[in-house]
């Protein structure tokens, strides 16, 4: 009797929450699919070569090795005989991404976005900025190569920095326009009454009020510079002497050479490549949603 009562209770609970239970199951499966490639890369990086090339594939390795991380560093080093240091690709990528991001966000995008929201309101200019964020790299790859060659900056940090500014500046401008647009005008009017000049209002008041926007612009611009491949392939094509080579470029040449051999090392190098942006992205998830979707999602 008692058992039947419990069973009845269970059925009642299931009737009420059946949909939720089903949703948890389905969503867990969905997430497993999204996370599997990352899991597979991590697991592969921790396998020995014979474990990597086994059939059936090993889904849950019983022992782990870190040798792939050292080996991958060695292979990278062998590919990149540069004097810059032991991890030139990381250094190059960091410098290029940081400089391009700072210049495009603070020097170009922030004042321009403020001007376009407060002083030169024009829907045509706004549309032009939006259009510029959507032009594929492949369209401008030939002219940028010609221009960078003309000013003798091929295979240098500066060449790639200039080209990266070309796509991060309009993107950050559009993003910050949305944020400046949300700043109430009354704040600025109050500052004006206090006797601040328009530039002081921009620099001391409004810029501080859009800090979340600035953070989103900085992180997203850094991530897109860090990950960029096509321009890097063309502008910094020459590995010798390697004046500037970014991480994705190294990884692709590594993949081309080791496609059928050093999967463990490749996976380890892949983890090196994606870890910085992955950490930033997860950490700043809330800020980024709005930026990634060009302002349509208010996080």
């Amino acid at each position, binding site marked *: 009797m008692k058992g039947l009562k419990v069973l009845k209770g269970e059925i009642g609970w299931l009737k009420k929450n059946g949909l939720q239970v089903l949703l*948890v199951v389905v*969503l867990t499966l*969905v*997430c497993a*699919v*999204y*996370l599997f*490639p*990352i899991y*597979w890369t991590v697991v592969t990086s921790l396998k020995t070569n014979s474990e990597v090339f086994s*059939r*059936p*594939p090993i889904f849950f390795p019983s022992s782990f090795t870190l040798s792939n991380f050292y080996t991958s560093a060695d292979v990278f080093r062998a590919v990149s005989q540069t004097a810059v240091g032991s991890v030139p690709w990381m250094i190059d990528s960091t410098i290029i991404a940081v400089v391009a991001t700072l210049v495009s966000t603070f020097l170009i995008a922030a004042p*321009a976005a403020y001007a*376009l929201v407060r*002083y*030169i309101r024009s*829907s045509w200019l*706004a549309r032009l900025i939006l*259009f510029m964020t959507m*032009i*594929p*790299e492949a*369209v*401008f*790859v030939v*002219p940028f190569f*010609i*221009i960078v060659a003309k000013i003798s900056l091929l295979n240098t940090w500066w060449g790639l920095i*200039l080209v990266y500014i*070309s796509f991060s*500046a309009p993107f950050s401008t559009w993003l910050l*326009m*949305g944020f400046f*647009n949300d700043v109430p005008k009354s704040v600025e009017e109050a500052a004006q009454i206090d006797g601040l000049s*328009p*530039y002081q209002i921009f620099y001391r008041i409004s810029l501080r009020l859009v800090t979340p926007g600035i953070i989103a612009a900085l992180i997203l611009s850094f991530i897109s510079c860090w*990950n960029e491949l*096509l321009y890097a392939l*063309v502008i910094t*094509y020459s590995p010798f002497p390697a004046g500037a080579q970014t991480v*994705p470029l190294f*990884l*692709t040449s590594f*993949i081309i050479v080791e496609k059928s051999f050093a*999967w463990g090392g*490749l*996976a380890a190098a*892949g983890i090196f*490549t*994606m870890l910085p*942006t992955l950490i930033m*992205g*997860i950490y700043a998830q809330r800020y980024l949603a*709005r930026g*990634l*979707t060009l*302002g*349509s999602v*208010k996080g």
Partner: protein
Amino acid sequence: MRRGQALRVGLILASPIIVYFVAFFIYPLYTLFQNAFTSASGAISLDNFRTMLSDPLLSVSLSNTAYYFVGSVALEYGIGFAVAVLLYNYTGRLRSIFRTAIFIPLMVSPVVIGLMWLMILNTNYGPLDYMLSFFGAGGINWLGSQSLAMPSLILANTWEYSPFVFLIIYAGLQTVPQQLYEAASVDGLTRFQTFRMITLPSIRPSIVVAFLLNSIGVLKGFDLIYVLTNGGPGYSTYILSFYTYVVGFSFFQPHYAAAIALLFLAIIGTFIFLMLRFTAVEDYLGLKKGKGE
């Protein structure tokens, strides 16, 4: 502030972007036109555009681009939308964990995504083939077959981009006022009717924005093709962005590459123009007028 003074302040603040605009947009655009409308000898000619008309590789690239575009957007949109609706209907504690998990692919660099799928799709040692072999569908050479290389690319691209659609639609769903649902249940609407008559019209902005940004993202794609198939086997995964690069930097025909780039720009431009003309998409992108006025 007087109008003249306001304009002066605006122009001073905008001066860096004006320099940028001339140096990074007008000048490259001019260089693009200049190259497209001259032959290799430097004489002005329409040869590049004439070549386009009879270039079999260009027509292959165009039809591949259409295949890639339709396949990717359909899958990404469908899956992203469905997952967003599923997560929205789930009210338990795991919500933010699920959201973060689905967000993660967006943060992985495309070259690494290429590497991941290279390993997963491998016929001999990859996990996918092993799992499929239980259903008698093993031994398929995903990336090495003319007919399956493109679907494989679309699969990898769907993993990368469906979270993007998810993100936009999910955020849209959360802005639907709860009162509307209460009113619907008072009126006795079924679940499906509520979805069709309440939810869908309310998230129209997200639906349009997700379509626009997803489409642009797919058309921009280059990295996955470069890493996974490099255009092959044969020319079966040549798409427009990849072909522009190949013509310019493997065939060393910058003039012809410039002409193809102009065609590419025209296609993207037309697409954006149509979206702006027939939807209010720019109003949905966080720049609604009036708030700061």
